[in-house]
Every structure is written in structure tokens, then in C-alpha cells.
């Protein structure tokens, strides 16, 4: 299938928001932070129609920022994001309704002073997907699809539980009849028991509505469960990209391998001892990333070249890419134990 969502060499910098006084102070040599954070750095990705791409990485690696760039909430500093050949944003304004977002925290993403029915219907009314007089039936239909009772349309968000609120947020996104759904950690703030229900709902709806999905999470087992392909991010860059089963079976980047190694397991083998291989060291400050490969200060495979040269993205196989100087060695001595990441949240 052809490319549907094309993310081409996208970067996003967050400069410090300096007041006039701070700007003057900076000019006079005052101790003011003027460096910009490179939240997303030269990311290129393509997503095919109907595919679910998992985006995974530690906190602060830029996965949420990348999601917001794709969703048209933030304009990229450079690079382009094209959906079906047309840009998502023009001059800092979102120009398409074909990409919609489900946010992480349903307690924050719903307007507390608006009835949930109005929250769901206002977008479709504003964009002519339904009319004011037909809105009731339209909303009721979407409420049913996400498993909510349509009689609740007149309630306020505070009258719902977390899982129900997230269903409302999903209904709001889907009522815009999008082609692409960005899910920014949609279950991270929910109870484990509710997580499974919401994930199942996602799988069902993306399949029924033929949605293309970018699923952002730090939960590896969840990503494995929902995605077709996975992109692993570290400090604003994509370090590994490939079909989810291949990446999980044999990761080509040492960072991916280390991430898998640090996952707690729900089911242990008969004589297995509980042991986590945590990643050594801290994530470097994105204000001053290390030279060469960003991961080299923490990488067990690092050599001299890693400290000086930024690794190019290289093709491992037809569908896989990795940004590591030593990926061949990493793949070669794959310890099979490391790759069997458990599925702790397996729905159904």
C-alpha cells in the first residue's frame, strides 16, 4: 500500500520564551537560558493507510511532541507533514479535520463546563458534518459506538469515571470522521482494568472504521499488542523502526534492547529470578545533547566512532531501519532472553 501520512525531516525546537527584560539581560551577558530544546529532531516517517504505528520511548524523548506535530496542534520548526499529499498545517493553523487526537488525560481534555454531548457535537457542527438539528442523533450514534449510553449526553464530565471520559474523548475524535487518529498515551492515566476495555475499543474501532493510527505509549507490551509497526524514539530522534514482531523478536538498536530488558514481567519462567536490566546513567539534557550518537554515553556497545559521528539511518531489511553504527553486531549476538518481552496487558 502507498504512503498515506508522510513525515519528512521534521524538527521541532522549543525556544525559551524570553520577556523583553530577559532579552536585554541576555544581550548584556546575564545568566539567561537562550538555548532551544530540540524536542523532535529530523524525524522522517511514513505511515500507510490502515496501519497502526506505535511510537515508544522514555519520558521526554519527544514522542508526544511528534504526536502533536502530526495532529496539527504544533507547527513543526522545519520539515513537512503531509496527509495524502496535502499539508496538515499551513501558516501555523491546522487546515484539515482528517487527523484527530485522543489525549492522555481525559480529566483535562474535556471542557469541565460543557455537556459531553456538546463537546462531541461542536466540531462536527462547525465543519458541517452534521447540523444543529441533527446533532442529537449524530452524537447518540457515536456514543453508542464507543459504548456510552446516549442518555448521558446532557451530563458534565465530572459525572463520569475516567474510562467513560476517555470514551467521550474517543467519541469526540471519531465524530469528526478522521482518517488518522493520534492516540497520545490514551490509557496511561486509567486503571489497568479499564485500560484493557479502552484498548479493545480502539482495536475494534480502528478496524471497523479503517483508521490509520499513531499510537504513542511508553508501555512496550501495549505497543506490541496494538501496533503493526513500531518506532523507537530517543532524545528526539527515531533510533529504530520496523514491524512490531520483528523489532520485538530481535531489536537492532542497543537502546531498544535495553528498553525491553527493563520491562517487568508478569509471568516468570519456572526457575527465573526477578531481575531488571536497567539502563545505566541518565537521559542527557536535550538542551545540550552529547556529540555523535545521542545514546553513546549509556550504550554498552559504544566505541570511538559513536562519540564523534551521528549514525545515519540504515536499512536492516526491507521494512526495518535503525540508526546505529553497530546494528549488525547487536543483531548478531541477540540474547533470545532479552527479546521475549512479556505482554502484561493482554486484552481478551
Amino acid at each position, binding site marked *: 500500500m502507498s504512503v498515506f501520512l508522510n513525515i519528512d525531516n521534521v524538527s521541532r525546537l522549543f525556544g525559551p520564551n524570553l520577556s523583553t527584560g530577559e532579552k536585554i539581560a541576555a544581550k548584556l551577558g546575564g545568566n539567561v537560558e537562550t538555548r532551544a530544546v530540540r524536542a523532535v529532531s529530523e524525524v522522517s516517517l511514513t505511515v500507510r493507510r490502515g496501519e497502526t504505528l506505535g511510537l515508544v520511548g522514555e519520558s521526554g524523548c519527544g514522542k508526544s511532541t511528534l504526536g502533536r506535530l502530526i495532529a496539527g496542534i504544533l507547527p513543526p520548526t522545519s520539515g513537512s507533514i503531509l496527509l495524502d499529499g496535502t499539508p496538515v498545517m499551513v501558516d501555523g493553523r*491546522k487546515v484539515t479535520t482528517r487527523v*484527530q487526537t485522543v489525549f492522555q488525560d481525559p480529566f483535562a481534555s474535556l*471542557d469541565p*463546563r460543557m455537556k459531553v454531548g456538546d463537546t462531541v457535537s461542536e466540531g462536527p457542527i*462547525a465543519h458541517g458534518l452534521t447540523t444543529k438539528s441533527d446533532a442529537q442523533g449524530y452524537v447518540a450514534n457515536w456514543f453508542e459506538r464507543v459504548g456510552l449510553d446516549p442518555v448521558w449526553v446532557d451530563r458534565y464530565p465530572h*459525572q463520569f469515571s475516567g474510562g467513560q471520559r476517555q470514551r467521550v474523548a474517543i467519541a469526540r475524535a471519531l465524530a469528526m470522521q478522521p482518517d488518522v487518529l493520534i492516540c497520545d498515551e490514551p490509557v496511561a492515566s486509567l486503571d489497568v482494568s479499564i485500560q484493557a476495555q479502552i484498548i479493545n475499543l480502539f482495536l475494534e474501532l480502528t478496524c471497523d472504521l479503517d483508521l490509520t493510527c499513531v499510537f504513542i505509549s511508553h508501555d512496550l507490551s501495549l505497543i506490541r499488542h496494538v501496533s503493526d509497526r513500531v518506532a523507537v524514539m530517543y532524545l528526539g530522534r527515531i533510533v529504530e523502526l520496523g514491524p512490531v514482531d520483528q523489532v520485538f523478536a530481535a531489536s537492532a538498536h542497543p537502546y531498544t534492547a535495553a528498553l525491553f530488558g527493563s520491562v517487568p514481567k508478569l509471568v516468570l519462567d519456572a526457575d527465573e529470578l526477578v531481575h531488571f536490566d536497567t539502563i545505566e546513567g541518565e537521559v542527557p539534557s536535550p538542551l545540550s545533547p552529547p556529540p555523535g550518537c545521542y545514546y553513546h554515553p549509556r550504550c554498552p556497545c559504544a566505541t570511538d566512532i559513536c562519540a564523534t559521528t551521528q549514525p545515519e539511518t540504515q536499512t536492516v531489511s526491507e521494512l526495518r531501519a535503525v540508526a546505529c553504527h553497530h546494528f549488525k553486531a547487536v543483531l548478531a549476538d541477540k540474547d533470545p532472553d532479552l527479546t521475549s518481552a512479556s505482554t502484561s496487558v493482554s486484552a481478551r
Partner: protein
Amino acid sequence: MSTANTPLRRFWAEFRENKVALVALVVVALMILLAVFASVVSPQNPYDLANLSLMDSRRPPGFVGSGGYTHILGTDPQGRDLLSAIFYGLRISIQIGLAAGFVSLTIGTTLGILAAYVGGRIEALIMRLVDLQLSFPAILLALVIVALLGQGKAQLIGALVVAQYAYFARTAYGAAKAERGKDYVEAALATPLSTRLVVMRHLLPNCMPPLIVVATVQIANSISLEATLSFLGLGLPVTEPSLGMLISNGFPYMMSGRYWISVYPGVALIILIVGINLVGDQVRDQFNPRLRK
């Protein structure tokens, strides 16, 4: 849940629990009713000079005047029935207080939200202006403007608005700045909805609670500012005395035993302002989650 399904109903249920605020609300409502129906409940029209007789001036409470009825609270130096003058004075005070309050609320909120939403130079310009203005006492500013504009209701309201919009702008700015960064605003923008829709349907309603609190306090403030200006002789024409002017009229007679001319309008003014402030306090407490039980 069924009895508390709207924010407004929950608000009212909680408000009712504070008996003091409830009594204050009733008193304020009563005073507003008296002011609205002043011409019906007053024994005399104090603004109609033909009705007034100088023979009746400065009479003590309980005096039966030439009109044939009892002046329950006495009369003022122009021979006005004080009770009627107070009702009419209340009308003026409440009119001006509400008008000034709502106009400053509208202007201040618009400026504050504009500053918070647009940011950059406009934000800096508006907010520095507001800061500058807040560094002057409101009464001073109002005095200067009334002196410049001259007498009259519209001029007075204008002066009060100029003196007070900054409080609303500051509050609206703070609230809008906080709400602007929240996910639900982002979600609305990501739909995408037009700026107008996002501001009017999401940002503004969520900025209202603190603004309502400031509004109740500022309406009381407008009323007392107006009374102060009138007391100083800078408010309305002498033929239409507001509460402040009634107090001012009686002031020279305070020491000669004719206390009622100043005291009764003063009492009316105090009851009104204290009433509004008590209601405002309760509203503020209810909007402040930290003070909630």
C-alpha cells in the same frame, strides 16, 4: 446526583448552607426591589421639586408634613421625605454600580483574554498599562476623570469604568493564561475550531468563576466610589441626590442634633455594601477549592 446535575444547581445548594450569605442575599435582593419600585413604595417623589416644601425641611422622624403623611425617617434640608429619597438614592446607586460593574467586566475581560490569548507585544502593552493603572488609587483616577468629564450619570459610569476595568483585566488575564494551556483548549484547537469558538465557548466560560467574584466585589466598590464622589460634590446633579449626596447634605447638621439626615442614608449604604460583600465572599469561597470542606 439527580438533584445536582448542573453546576448552577450544585452552586446554589452549597450557597444555601451559609445562612449569613443567604440573609445577605435576601437583603440585597430586597434593596434592589425597593430601588426598582421606588416610585411605587415611596410616599413622595423627591426629584419633583413641586412636591417639596421648604416648610418641611430638616424635620425629625415621625413628623407629619404638609403632604399629610408621616415622614418616617424625617426630612432633609430641601424638605424631601428621607425614606423616599433613600429609595430613589438606592436606585441611582444600584444603577450606577451595576452599569459600571458590567461595563468594566466586559471591557476588562475582553482586554485580559485578548492579552492572554494573543500574547507577544499586545500582551505586554495591555498588561503594562493595567499594571500602571493599578498603581494609582481608584478614587484618585475617578476624581480626575469626573472633574474632566463633568456631571451626569454617563460621565460618572465612564469614570468608574476607567477606574475599575483594570481589576477585571488582571483577573481575566490570569485565568485565561492558566486555561489556555489546558488540554481541553488544545483539543478544541486541534479539531480545528475557529479562534472565536474556542474563546467564546471554552476559554470564556472557564474564566468566569473568578470574574464573577471580582464583579460582586467591584459592584460594591462602584457603589461606594459613587457615594464618595457624590459626597465630595462631584457626582450627579443636586436635584437628583444619590445616597452619597444625601449624606453630604446632612453633614453640616450632624452636630446640631439633626443626625437623621446623614445617618439613615448612611445606614442604607452600609447595609447594601455589606450585603453585596457578604454574598461576594461566599461566592469567592465556593469558587476556591482550597476553602472547600
